């Protein structure tokens, strides 16, 4: 092959030795095909001449004639490739090289990450930001990305929202495993320790089809750091202490790598906080105690490799004491009083209401590379999620028992093949098989099951491709099909069955009408066929501009909460009702982003439009009268919805030491038919940050950040309820958003070298410097208490 190539080059070289003007210039870069990293020291050979790329991977060849040339491009660890270029037509050309071996090395290029898709809006946060949030949560860290906000329950339960959508519409991939941790509940945070991630990428939409087709909101992809294939032993420890909550976290990892590709990695983290504090009072019972550990080992070779990974996560979270309310009158009083009912002295103790969640995740991955064809990867993963929720119940004896006890077990097998041998296109196809079982233990709880026992089966298949149309235009496209079957066994109270009108539509699924206590047992078996697809382009022009445009179609089958929820959720003080008639939702999302990046400054503006047919929403509809008074009833409903928004960011490097960053995001969601705003849409927010850096002063970096969150002026109407206290109908301001607020945050860090391989990073963060009192529309406990007051965090990280 090589000899043949050389012969060709020689012949071509000879053939162009004719008399004409040879003053053409060819410039460009040699780039790693797999991760887009420019390759320094790559050689370009033609006509016995050799050119070497500089540190930016760029090259310039002068004195070419206006004919075709064959260039042999090669680089250490790369297979040499031959490109034929007609110099009468082209003056610039980027060469992409196969650089497989590079994957085995730790690639550390600041700000450069391999993208998940070419054409959709996405952004990655790296180790520096992840370390800053070591004692916080994934949802907190992701808010650094414009367009990502969070739905909170108190301080420690943080669910990411991507461009207005959250919950089951946001997929979370943890080390290539799709998290199955009961993401259907608003107060169920992702069961993930952020310290396990090396990078986190957010794809704002359903375009990364290999991970799943139902990501109507988007996909969060957490990846561990790669272990280099060399004899090495290194580690890292991060210790954080915070004044608010009087606690902190410690996270430590150690990595051993061998020249032959074997590696071993172990990591552990511990987080402990007592009651957090608002500026004016203690937020009683808001402590958290989180434990996480993971271990991975495997072998990374060029031809094949495998890795095994296991992680354990356990968290105990207190729910604000004053949020446990008796009835709708208590809720009205809380909304009006502006201060929580229960303010106790600070404590580390976590009492009811509280959650206790354990998540086990194990996986085995195997891959094999086929010469000049591609890479085959197969993975099996296992997850078990055990959730307990403890409420304040009528007797001590009952309070010791959980009110919710759900165990969700998931087995998944995926297998895919990536055809990446061709320089100008790559294809990836794969399949997925999944089985999931949910068991609700009523013997333990003595409370009606909020979510029933069920079995779920998923089968999926996808094909995605990326095509380099020319050096500045890339197109990507994909299609995916998913089949979901849910097979549940659920007890309905006869009265609820009638009230929902199920007798007319679903009488055939009843398998036992004579269950004790006026109940019946139904066996709903529902099948869903989901098609998703995407197509988009990435166009680079004028040196530092990039334009991306993407269309994504996604379908999502309803989750168990949307179908089956049925009962009083004590800790939320509401009755939640699903509906068996709920069908899958379909999203058409168009997104465009235009960006310019250079050393001086850069910006990105990214508008999008998401049209969701049969959008599933949960909203307050009225009250249910009980012996404890009236409880708000929340029901699931479907409607056509549209979300229009824009995310924008800009940075300016004013000088060597001063940089400013500016982020803005806006989303407007409403029902298409009647213009009623959607519930829980993030308010517009505007963040400005000024950063000072000085390398000479131990890599000093200091920044002051201003966060302005507007008031959400678009919200669905409040509901009118009967107040037993007032003995009349009153407006329950359950949807009214709180006022706008402005926060100032400060962050600084320095780096000290302690030895040849050891460095120490010390950071200080002050959040809410002005100790501002504020409430957040996207906090479900906003009716009861203010958000956190000032917080000092000291962070020490040691790399060794």
């Amino acid at each position, binding site marked *: 092959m090589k000899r043949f190539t050389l012969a060709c080059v020689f012949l071509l070289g000879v053939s162009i030795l004719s008399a004409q003007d040879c003053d053409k210039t060819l410039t460009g870069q040699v780039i790693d095909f797999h991760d887009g990293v420019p390759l320094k020291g790559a050689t370009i050979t033609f006509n016995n001449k050799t050119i070497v790329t500089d540190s930016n991977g760029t090259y310039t060849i002068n004195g070419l004639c206006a004919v075709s040339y064959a260039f042999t491009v090669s680089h250490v660890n790369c297979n040499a490739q031959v490109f034929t270029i007609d110099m009468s037509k082209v003056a610039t050309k980027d060469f992409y090289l196969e650089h497989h071996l590079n994957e085995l090395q730790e690639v550390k290029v600041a700000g450069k990450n391999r993208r998940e898709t070419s054409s959709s809006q996405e952004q990655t946060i790296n180790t520096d930001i992840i370390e800053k949030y070591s004692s916080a949560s994934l949802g907190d860290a992701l808010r650094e990305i414009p367009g990502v906000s969070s739905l909170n329950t108190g301080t420690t339960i943080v669910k990411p929202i991507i461009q207005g959508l959250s919950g089951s519409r946001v997929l979370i991939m943890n080390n290539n495993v799709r998290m199955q941790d009961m993401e259907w509940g608003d107060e169920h945070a992702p069961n993930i320790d952020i310290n396990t991630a090396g990078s986190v990428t957010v794809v704002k939409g359903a375009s990364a089809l290999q991970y799943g087709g139902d990501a109507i909101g988007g996909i969060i992809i957490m990846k561990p750091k790669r272990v280099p294939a060399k004899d090495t032993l290194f580690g890292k420890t991060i210790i954080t202490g915070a004044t608010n909550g009087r606690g902190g976290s410690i996270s430590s990892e150690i990595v051993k790598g061998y020249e032959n590709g074997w590696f071993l990695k172990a990591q552990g983290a511990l987080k402990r906080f007592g009651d957090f504090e608002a500026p004016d009072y203690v937020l009683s019972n808001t402590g958290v105690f989180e434990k996480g550990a993971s271990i991975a080992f495997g072998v990374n070779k060029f031809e094949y490799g495998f890795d095994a990974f296991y992680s354990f996560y356990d968290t105990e979270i207190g729910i604000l004491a004053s949020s*446990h309310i*008796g*009835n709708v009158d*208590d809720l009205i009083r809380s909304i009006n009083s502006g201060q929580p*009912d*229960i303010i106790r002295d600070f404590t580390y103790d976590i009492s009811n209401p509280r959650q206790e969640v354990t998540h086990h995740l194990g996986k085995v991955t195997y891959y*094999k590379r086929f010469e000049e064809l591609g890479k*085959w990867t*197969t993975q099996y993963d296992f997850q078990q999620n055990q959730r307990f929720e403890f409420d*304040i*119940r*009528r*007797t*001590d*004896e*009952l309070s010791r028992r959980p009110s919710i006890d759900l165990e969700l077990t998931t*087995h998944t*097998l995926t*297998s895919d093949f990536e055809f990446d041998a061709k320089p100008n296109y790559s294809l990836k196809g794969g399949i997925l*098989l999944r*089985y999931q*079982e949910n068991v*609700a233990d*009523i*013997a333990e*709880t*003595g*409370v*009606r*099951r909020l979510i*029933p*026992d069920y*079995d779920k089966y998923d089968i999926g298949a996808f094909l995605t491709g990326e095509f380099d149309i020319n050096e500045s235009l890339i197109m990507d496209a994909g299609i995916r099909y998913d089949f979901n079957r849910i097979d549940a*066994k659920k*007890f309905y*109270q*006869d*009265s*609820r069955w009638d*009230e929902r009108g199920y007798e007319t539509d679903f009488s055939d699924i009843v*398998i*036992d009408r004579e269950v*004790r*206590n*006026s*109940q019946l*047992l139904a066996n709903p078996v529902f099948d869903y066929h989901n098609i998703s697809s995407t197509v988009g382009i990435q166009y680079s022009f004028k040196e530092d501009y990039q334009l991306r445009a993407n269309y994504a179609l996604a379908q999502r089958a309803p989750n168990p909460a949307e179908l089956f929820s*049925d*009962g*009083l959720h004590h800790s939320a003080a509401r*009755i939640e009702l699903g509906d068996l008639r709920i069908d899958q939702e379909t999203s058409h999302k168009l997104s465009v982003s235009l960006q310019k990046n250079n050393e001086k400054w850069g910006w990105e503006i990214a508008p999008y439009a998401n049209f969701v047919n049969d959008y599933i929403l949960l909203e307050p509809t009225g009250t*249910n*009268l*009980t*012996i*404890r*008074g009236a*409880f708000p009833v929340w029901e699931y409903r479907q409607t056509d919805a549209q979300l229009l928004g824009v995310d924008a960011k800009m940075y300016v490097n004013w000088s060597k030491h001063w940089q400013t960053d500016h982020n803005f995001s806006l989303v407007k969601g409403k029902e298409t038919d009647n213009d009623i705003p959607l519930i829980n849409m993030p308010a517009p927010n505007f963040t400005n940050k000024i950063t000072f850096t000085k390398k000479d002063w131990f890599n000093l970096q200091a920044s002051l950040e201003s966060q302005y969150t507007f008031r959400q002026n678009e919200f669905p109407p409040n509901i009118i309820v009967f107040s*037993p206290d007032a*003995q009349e109908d009153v407006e329950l301001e359950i949807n009214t958003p709180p006022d706008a607020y402005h926060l100032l945050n400060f962050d600084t860090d320095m780096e000290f070298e302690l030895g040849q391989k050891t460095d120490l990073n010390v950071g200080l963060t002050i959040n809410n410097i002005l100790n501002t009192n504020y409430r957040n529309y996207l906090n479900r406990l906003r009716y009861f208490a203010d958000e956190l007051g000032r917080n000092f965090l000291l962070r020490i990280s040691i790399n060794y």
Partner: protein
Amino acid sequence: MNLRKFLAVFFLGALVLTSCSDDDDNPDPGTEEEVITTMTVTLTDGTDPVVLNFFDADGENGPIDPVPTVTGVFKANTTYEGTILLLNTTEDPTEIVNEEIEAEADEHQFFYLTEDLGITIAYDDMESDYVNSEGVAFTSENPVGIDFTLTTSNDTGNGQLRIVLRHELSKDAAGVSDGDITNAGGSPDIDWTFNISVE
């Protein structure tokens, strides 16, 4: 080849998995522990009883609205001996919820609240009247409110009587042992208001 082998193993595995899962067994309907379907407050002056009854056929989870009924009318200037009974009739035999409240008498207290018609209420029991789950009598003497007295005044007409049960409250807080709920705190188990009249 490898792929084919793998898939074969997987499908076999899936088959085993699904056939092992207890698809054919129906789940246990279980027992709901905290349901109160019936609350009956019986007041008597020795001759004519007044009965305040609350009935919620499907408990607090169910959609059926509770039905309150009041039989009898209070007489002016009369003292009534009252007692409250809580039941769960969805169980067979009917569960007497009073028992679990008596067993944790030191953690529970009923409040009978009214500002109408000069009606006054006094507790007529104390924790030491009850025994805990191990059969040992409480020694403390705070009121519980399962037994109480209600005294009407000269005033006649219509009024309201609110009945509240709280647990984990501050029984020692000011006024609580006299039936004032203001400082009681705790969590509510019952909060229901009856319409009454005095003739």
